[in-house]
């Protein structure tokens, strides 16, 4: 579904990604793991058009994405649940959700998708008129997930969902990821929680210093070998 080929990208004069190539197959969960500063988030931001490419190409269903605007991605069926949730703190939970269905084509089904989101995340339903800034970290992550699902995306890109959350909430989160996967969505998951991420994934890519150092089907990945690679440098 998504083909990333020889991508170089960075911020101004500082290059972060060095010839990254990753292929994301339809209907499967691809996880990208790696230590802090490996370029995982930069790669996701490059896919979404928030960081310009200096080399290489990203194709979605065969169509090149180069230079297309971030705000056109939702219409193309790609939604991102960003690192640090990025919820709109001074807006209510319901307003946050509705913004997830902002593109014109989504607005007709917004109300129905909103109810679906409440069914999946009942705690949000109880608090629909509260300001999003009053939510706990776990609830804020659930809101970010629910908002990302409002446009019923074909490809869901999730950046570090478990960051800063209690283990109980992390378990809950990965149960939801497994459910989304079972629904047949294509998912790209960036995680620091290697153990959990590999557990739910079909494909694993390990990034280090802006390069992909390992790409394997999840079934063939041994956690020990992964940890050795992880801490090798």
């Amino acid at each position, binding site marked *: 579904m998504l083909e990333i080929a020889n991508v170089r990208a960075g911020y101004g004069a500082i290059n972060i990604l060095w010839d990254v190539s990753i292929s994301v197959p339809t209907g499967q969960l691809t996880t990208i793991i790696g230590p802090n500063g490996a370029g995982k988030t930069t790669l996701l931001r490059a896919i979404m058009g928030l960081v310009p490419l200096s080399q290489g190409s990203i194709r979605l269903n065969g169509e090149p994405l180069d230079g297309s605007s971030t705000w056109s991605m939702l*219409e193309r069926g790609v939604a991102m649940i960003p690192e640090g949730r990025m919820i709109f703190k001074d*807006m209510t939970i319901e307003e946050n959700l509705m913004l997830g269905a902002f593109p014109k084509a989504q607005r007709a089904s917004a109300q129905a998708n909103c109810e679906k989101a409440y069914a999946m995340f009942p705690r949000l339903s109880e608090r629909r008129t509260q300001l999003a800034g009053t939510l706990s970290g776990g609830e804020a992550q659930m809101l970010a997930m629910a908002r990302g699902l409002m*446009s019923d995306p074909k490809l869901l890109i999730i950046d570090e969902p478990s960051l800063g959350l209690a283990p109980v909430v992390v378990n809950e989160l990965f149960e939801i990821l497994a459910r989304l996967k079972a629904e047949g969505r294509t998912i790209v998951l960036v995680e620091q929680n290697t153990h959990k991420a590999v557990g739910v994934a079909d494909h694993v890519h390990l990034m280090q210093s802006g390069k992909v150092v390992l790409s394997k089907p999840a079934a063939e990945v041994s956690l020990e070998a992964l940890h050795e690679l992880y801490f090798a440098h």
Partner: protein
Amino acid sequence: MSELILQALYSGVLQGGSYALIALGLALVFGTMKVINLAHGELVLLAAYMAYTVESRLGLSPMFAIPVALVLVCITAVLVYFLVSLIRKDRELNSLILTYGIGIILTNAVLLIWSADVRSTSSSWMQDALVFGPFYSMRSEVLFFVVSVALMGGLWWWLSKSWYGRAVRAVSSNRDAAKLMGINPRSTEIVSFIVAGILASFAGVAIFSYGVIQPAFGHVLTVKAFIITVLAGIGSIPGVMVGALLLGIAEALTVTLASSALQELVGMSLFLLVLFVMPNGLFGAAGRRG
């Protein structure tokens, strides 16, 4: 004495309505674009002079100037937007210089076209007294206060219920997140300038209908709007409304109890006081903007 104070409070609240319209425009544009439009008061002034022209040339009530003012002011506002959007580097700082310059050009254009004379309405319908119990005012003051409240209600509805209004708030709150929601921030920026222009048009016609105008007045209005936004705490829309009432009341009390020469000073004193005591403004959450 207490009657005088009550009367000052009443006048202050009425005046606060127009101040709120002006300050809301400034705050909206700052929210989406992080640009303080120092030519904002001149947009209001332009509308006020349109009201003067319609009254003096066509002999009509200033109210009839509203459609013309809306078109002219919104076009000027969009023009300011395009000039500001041409800035590539350090937009937050450079836009201050640019919009200040646009303000000077507009002031001088007004001076050229309408001369430096002080103008006010000659419509007796507007100036007729309207008395509610102990409260006295001109009819135009009450009329435009009602219009201001209606416009603020409309703005509130638009910001909280409409797709585009919510997009404007989303861009103000977190620009990158808004882009991920499929919102093009440039179009919300234009929309916020147009809405600011609409509010400025009504405020300008209001100010001509109950007060006096002269070409240098635009600058004074910009400063007032800026004071109100800082009083409110940048980013707080209800705060702007309360801040506008506060400034209106403070000015009216000063004029009643001390001297009208001190009217502009009291706003500035309030501004400094708030900056020292509550740097986030009266309603701004601590660290709202990081």
